[in-house]
């Protein structure tokens, strides 16, 4: 077993893997989806699929907030930054994601003021440092990140800062899961719930998955043993015909979530009626926008954005990979026209994208064998 020597507790890992094999009914095909990009990464890194029985498949969900953003939104953000005096700021993950006319990094090479920052608080700091310029922050992320954007906007308001705005592309994880369950080409038996998103939203938001859809969900930590234990818990539920929310990551995730974070989000943001997700079409109530009380700091209201819908290049199958219908290697462009060095879509760029994870762990391994 690959990497098993690195595991802190190899005997427990072995025993847990054995229990998985005992619990898995050989007459059944199991499809378990992990939603969060960090879990996808851990599964590949720790070679966990080698440890699982062949009738248990792990399907990667759309837990990569950079990956699910349609190209048109990137174009919008860059178009806004083309206004004179604007400084375009975003996290490092965004910088190489292609828009129609290039990525933020490519725009920088063509003369736009583009700066990588590591915290929304630093976009605000930049605005304070450069009162003669306008700092626009391209905000992305799920509920792990949205509270920090919210607090930053509250601080901007308290300061009465005039030269700062946020282009809000925060998305929410629950509607994405709902869309997957509603999708006719998906069959998912159970879910591994996200780790750090859940420190913010807690476990309650997942209850409808169990109650209404009848699917078990276990919120998991990131260690190999955490993930394997979570799979054991899911298989036990499936065996007993149960469906409930369980928290395997109790040591970090509180059932009620972080109330201050939830309050900050509620004060600053409201749900958009709908938002387009790459490859998944429009999903209702799946993304955040600034409330009217924060209109002054809403980049979409301060600047004109083209708002053009841009579809992915025809050959790219980003949408199907995001939904878990295709494995990364099944996309026609994978490893050929689309690599981490020259990405066609965001799934190959982002550290949480399943194509990047697959490429870095599996593809290189295979090509090394034939090298």
């Amino acid at each position, binding site marked *: 077993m690959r990497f098993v020597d*690195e595991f*802190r507790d190899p005997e427990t890992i072995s025993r847990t893997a054995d229990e998985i094999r005992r619990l898995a009914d050989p007459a059944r095909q199991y499809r378990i989806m992990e939603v*969060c*990009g*960090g879990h996808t*990464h*851990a599964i590949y*890194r*720790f070679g966990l699929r080698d440890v699982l029985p062949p009738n248990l498949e792990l399907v990667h969900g759309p*837990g990569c907030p950079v990956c699910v953003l349609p190209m048109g939104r990137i174009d919008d953000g860059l178009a806004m930054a083309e206004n004179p005096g604007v400084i375009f700021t975003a*996290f*490092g*993950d965004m910088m190489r994601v292609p828009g129609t006319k290039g990525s933020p990094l490519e725009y920088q090479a063509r003369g736009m003021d583009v700066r*990588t*920052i*590591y*915290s*929304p*608080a*630093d976009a605000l*700091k*930049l605005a304070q*440092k450069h009162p003669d310029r306008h700092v626009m922050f391209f905000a992305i*992320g*799920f509920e*792990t*990140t949205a*509270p*920090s954007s919210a*607090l930053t906007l509250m*601080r901007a308001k308290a300061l009465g800062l005039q030269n700062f705005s946020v282009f809000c592309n925060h998305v929410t994880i629950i509607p994405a899961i709902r869309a997957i369950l509603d999708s006719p080409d998906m069959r998912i038996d159970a879910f591994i719930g*996200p*780790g*750090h*998103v859940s*420190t*913010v939203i807690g476990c309650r938001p997942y209850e409808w998955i169990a109650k209404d859809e009848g699917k078990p969900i276990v919120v998991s930590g*990131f*260690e190999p043993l955490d993930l394997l234990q979570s799979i054991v818990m899911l298989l036990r539920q499936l065996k007993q015909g149960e469906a409930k929310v369980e928290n395997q990551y109790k*040591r*970090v995730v*509180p059932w009620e979530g*972080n*109330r*201050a*974070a939830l309050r*900050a989000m509620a004060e600053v943001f409201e749900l958009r009626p709908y938002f387009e997700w790459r490859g998944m079409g429009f999903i209702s109530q799946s993304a955040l926008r600034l409330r009217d009380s924060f209109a002054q700091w809403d980049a979409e209201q301060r600047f004109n954005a083209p708002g053009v819908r841009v579809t992915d290049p025809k050959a790219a199958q980003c949408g199907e990979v995001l939904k878990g219908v295709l494995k990364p290697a099944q996309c026609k462009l994978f490893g050929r026209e689309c690599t981490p060095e020259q990405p066609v879509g965001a799934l190959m760029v982002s*550290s*949480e994208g399943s194509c990047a994870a697959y490429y870095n762990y599996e593809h290189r391994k295979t090509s090394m064998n034939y090298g």
Partner: protein
Amino acid sequence: MCLAIPGKIVELLPDSCRSALVDVAGVRRRVDLGLIEEEKPAPGDWVLIHVGFALSKISEEDALEQMRILQMLGEDTAAMEEVKGYGLGEEPERRSQEPGDRSQNGGPSG
């Protein structure tokens, strides 16, 4: 990055935001505590950090485990790059600085 970064609170900072000087593997930067005020964070506490904000307090054991996970996933370099980038790459002014001794903050960024 959806994985949060563990750090240890060194001291609370005297600015108007609720923030602290936090140490992550030897790098010290300002981290906003506004999301965990209700947990009454104090020097010596370990916290989980994401984009410059503390999301929750955690035990030292879980903090060290989280560091290990980041290393095993090869995410530790990106995590340290993130932390070094906080505050636009500068260490914050400290309460403990002498009044008259306005020495330069931190070093070159990045």
